[in-house]
């Protein structure tokens, strides 16, 4: 009995180590995010030169591109955690996956919104059903579906497994988004940024983009850690109740 009793607590041990660590990390990353974002926005909106084709409207890129990147990265991360939680049943992985989802959904939404706003001046329409845009919209639905399914199933264990499964199945979508501009001949811009060819844009634009991307990362880390802390607390309460009822 005492042997087996230890199992859940060992799993929580990692969570209880995590808690104070997160407490220290959250403010650091939040501050980092702020600083990076301020510098990045300054470079992007003030220093970077005006585009000879698009005028000033291209500056929306400094939000659009990092947000689009984040939307995909976060999904991949979520799917990875989902695999870990489904296969090895590590509870912390499930908590991380669930904490990532809202932020991922937010970045997806931002990418869609800024993309649509950008599309109006450049393509003359807010929306077309091209492969990249459609698959990005699908990504938003996947995030929403993941969260919806998670909260719809009242049993947490089953909820986490079902939602994790959905996340993994949905991961097929990410390569489709990424390679859609290569596989299909679409309206959306191809990759203008690659390390081998060097930059096809000015240094200021490049740095602004990179700084904004880093800022998004720092923000994501801070917010996700905070959310994970809240979830751990909530589940501790459940565990406490469970031990109480077992003693009955």
């Amino acid at each position: 009995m005492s042997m087996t009793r230890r199992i859940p607590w060992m799993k929580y041990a990692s969570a209880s180590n995590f808690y104070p660590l997160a407490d220290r990390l959250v403010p650091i990353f939040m501050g980092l995010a702020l600083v990076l974002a301020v510098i990045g926005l300054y470079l992007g909106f003030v220093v970077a030169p005006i585009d000879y084709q698009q005028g000033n409207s291209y500056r929306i890129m400094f939000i659009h591109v990092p947000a689009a990147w984040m939307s995909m990265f976060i999904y991949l991360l979520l799917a990875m955690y989902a695999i870990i939680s489904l296969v090895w049943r590590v509870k912390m992985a499930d908590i991380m996956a669930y904490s990532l989802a809202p932020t991922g959904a937010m970045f997806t939404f931002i990418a869609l919104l800024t993309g649509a706003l950008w599309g109006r001046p450049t393509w003359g329409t807010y929306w077309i059903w091209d492969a990249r845009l459609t698959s990005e919209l699908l990504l938003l639905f996947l995030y929403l579906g993941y969260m919806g399914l998670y909260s719809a199933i009242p049993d947490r264990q089953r909820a986490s497994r079902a939602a994790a499964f959905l996340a993994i199945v949905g991961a097929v979508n990410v390569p489709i988004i990424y390679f859609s501009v290569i596989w299909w001949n679409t309206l959306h811009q191809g990759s203008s940024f690659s390390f081998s060819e060097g930059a096809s844009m000015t240094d200021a634009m490049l740095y602004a983009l990179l700084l904004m991307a880093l800022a998004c990362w720092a923000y994501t880390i801070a917010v996700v850690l905070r959310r994970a802390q809240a979830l751990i607390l909530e589940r501790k309460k459940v565990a406490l109740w469970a031990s109480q009822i077992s003693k009955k």
Partner: protein
Amino acid sequence: MLKIEGLAVEREERLLFSGLSVSLSAGEGLHIVGENGAGKTTLLRVLCGLTLQASGSISWCGQDVSVFREEYCSDLLYLGHKNANKTELNCRENLRLALGVLSVSDEAISDALHDAGLGLISHLPTRFLSQGQQRRLSLARLLLTKSKLWILDEPYVALDYKAIDWLDSHLERHLKSGGMLILTSHQTLTLSSKIRVLNLGEQHA
């Protein structure tokens, strides 16, 4: 034949039972008892592979059941709280459906229904049957199956005393012919064969 080792089941952080080890060989029966909510139903479902255990292993004829699922399932008959009857089908159709891929002649089905006391109403959609009649119908499968391991969750519920006798005689026959039986029931068993008792409450404490 059936061997359970170190089985533990959790529900939302709550350990229902742990360290459960039992084995069952041909002709043996096991009666699982325990309070309401002790985890009897959950245990039976775990044994069928419908629910996942937190730890421990179950093997059938020396083979892990989660690996050799099909082999295990062809030896297994499970009857849950629910009767698994389609309310819009009649007794005959339901019984045929319940037998799955097993092919059985029409006469055999008629005989089984008659034996279960449903001969006269075998053409009625089961929605019109009384609770006890529905339970009898799902128990009628026992007369036709070739499975060796029977797992029955509260089979006596809703049965009148005649039906209890009828069921008892079939369970005896199954055990005599080398079958295995695991059942739960809050009533004291009236089976004449001796059956081992597993108390989940004690296990748990």
